[in-house]
């Protein structure tokens, strides 16, 4: 029974975690808007012909960025690209008036970011290009809260890599939660201009991705092709970058999540199987322990089928009970995850039905052998059993 509980709870937890992750990512990507093309470093996907993605290259996620400022400029010259926004990841640490935070995304970008991502500024304003006299930064809602302890710290200063910045604006709190393939968590982000990022790093900043807003949302494919040709030119014909349209981003994100989820679910399924064998063990012990009871029941007129169904029902009760407790445990774990982490697991009805169904199946299958053993016993042998 414990085996079934552990098996079911881990399967439900993991699958709901995966499902929640997927939904979060999908939500974040949809936030981007459908007219956005994302350029990422490395050849992340293999394409089947020209359109559909048939493979994801996980290694490409780990390589150094191949995107440069030159690429940004090249795309900026395209007539089909309305706006080009580079995003480069500078550091993760910033010091405020009260404390130092180490889990931030300090991102170098251009002022168009807010417009491209439909991200509104709650207080103050986004920095503009060419403000030379002061170094401005736009911060997320969580950063404002934790670094300064107030909702609107506009005008206060913070320090990134030893350089002082003035907060020019605070972004509206966004609903997203996690750093995903495509997107940063705006609540935990500090945006500075690309020029300042270059100054901070003392070299070319590591451009994580370039967002391109298409001139014509209905002609995304044309824009994507233009961007690809332009980049091929700057990359000497070697395609070590990826041009992704909105929906393809979804595919990649959910593809990665699916792989991980399937892997862990497999492990959890094995524990479910082990739980089933545990049930068989318990049932076999129970059958031999209760041999005398079986004998008595047969002596007073139980047919083999009635004995069989009695033991099947007992096995079933064990596994259904275990399955339901497992789902309950998973719900508790999910509640804990929701309270203490950024994960937002989603338990769907089909998942619960599937998990309980599988445990019922396991229970029946592994109860058959002990139940048959009990049913086939001769009444006189069973009665004589000590």
């Amino acid at each position: 029974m414990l085996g079934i509980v552990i098996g079911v709870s881990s399967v439900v937890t993991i699958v709901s975690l995966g499902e929640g992750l997927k939904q979060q990512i999908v939500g974040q990507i949809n936030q981007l808007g459908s007219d956005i093309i994302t350029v990422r470093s490395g050849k992340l996907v293999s394409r089947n012909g020209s359109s559909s993605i048939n493979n994801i290259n996980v290694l490409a996620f780990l390589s150094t960025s191949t995107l440069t400022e030159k690429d940004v400029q090249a795309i900026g010259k395209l007539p089909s690209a309305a706006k080009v926004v580079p995003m480069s990841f500078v550091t993760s640490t910033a010091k405020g008036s009260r404390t130092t935070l180490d889990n931030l995304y300090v991102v170098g970008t251009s002022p168009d970011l807010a417009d491209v991502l439909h991200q509104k500024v709650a207080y103050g304003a986004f920095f503009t290009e060419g403000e030379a006299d002061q170094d401005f930064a736009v911060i997320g809602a969580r950063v404002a809260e934790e670094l300064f302890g107030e909702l609107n710290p506009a005008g206060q200063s913070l320090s990134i890599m030893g350089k002082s910045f003035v907060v020019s604006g605070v972004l509206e709190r966004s609903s997203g939660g996690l750093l995903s393939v495509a997107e940063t968590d705006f609540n935990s982000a500090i945006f500075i201009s690309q020029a300042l990022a270059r100054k901070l790093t003392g070299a070319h900043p590591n451009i994580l991705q370039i967002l391109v807003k298409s001139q014509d949302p209905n002609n995304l494919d044309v824009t994507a092709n233009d961007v690809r040709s332009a980049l091929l030119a700057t990359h000497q014909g070697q395609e070590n970058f990826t041009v992704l349209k909105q929906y393809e981003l979804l595919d990649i994100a959910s593809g990665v999540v699916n792989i991980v989820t399937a892997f862990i679910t497999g492990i959890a399924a094995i524990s479910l199987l082990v739980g089933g064998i545990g049930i068989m063990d318990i049932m076999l012990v129970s059958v031999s322990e209760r041999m005398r009871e079986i004998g008595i029941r047969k002596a007073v007129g139980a047919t083999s089928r009635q004995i069989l169904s009695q033991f099947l029902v007992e096995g079933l009760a064990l596994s259904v009970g275990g399955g339901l407790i497992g789902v309950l445990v998973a719900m508790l774990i999910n509640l804990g995850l929701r309270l203490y982490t950024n994960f937002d697991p989603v338990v769907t009805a089909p998942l619960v039905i599937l998990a309980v169904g599988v445990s019922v199946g396991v229970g029946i299958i592994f109860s058959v052998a002990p139940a048959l053993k009990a049913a086939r016993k001769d009444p006189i042998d069973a009665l004589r059993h000590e």
Partner: protein
Amino acid sequence: MTLIELQEVSKLYGFGDATTLALDEAMLSVEKGEFLAVMGPSGSGKSTLMNIIGLLDRPTHGIYLLDGRHVARLRTNQRAKMRRDRIGFVFQAYNLLPRLNVLENVALPLAYKGMTPVRRQKRASDLLELVGMRDREYFMPRQLSGGQAQRAAIARALINKPSIIIADEPTGNLDSTDSKVVMELFSDIHRRGNTILLVTHNPELTRYASRVIYMYDGMIVGDEKTAIGDMAKGARRIYYQKRKVTDDEIAGGVSAYLRDVPGKELASRSKRPGKRRRKKTPTRRRTVRRKVKI
């Protein structure tokens, strides 16, 4: 009306060198309404006979007619239904299910009949009233004294209105007071027209019986009609007498036993350990030994 008829019924345990004859061509016919006491020393085949009559066990050879029907032709399921509807068992060890209370134990055969819980509990309650156990309905078996447990077991045996009650040493674990209560109960049931088969070691108990048979070494060696209230005449004498094996039987030896026994059938029977009780009296056991051809 003949209720039970056994024709040359034998029961063998084990095979090959270790074949043991538990029942040796027993001939018996029991009329409806008889109170039959079965006496004999340990290992004489009394329990084996009862198990065969009670459809718990199958004879190796011979014909068993219950109500004129060939029992050997019945399938396992039909035998189970026969046990449920026609036969009530009372065991020496009570054999109540420890996890069910008295009422549920008594109602158990009705559950296998498919009766609704309310109806079967009502009926079980009535039966417990009959055996004077009404106030112990919700006790668990371990909370009962031996006599109470045996009365509950009798109520369970009676619940399907069986035509045959088989009681295998029902007073074996009881003191004299409880024995008397239980035997009076059987006597009462007998007066209502039930057929009762009672295995006992106690000659006193033959006072309740209308007929006594004596067993020895798997054979029925005596049959005596007695008036209810009188102790059977042969009860003491035959019980302690040792049966003489004739010279013919010794000379006949193995082949006498095995002549009618097809080897195939013996080999196909699963190994059965000899009854424990039989092992305590190895001198009395007749072990058939086959000469091995080299």
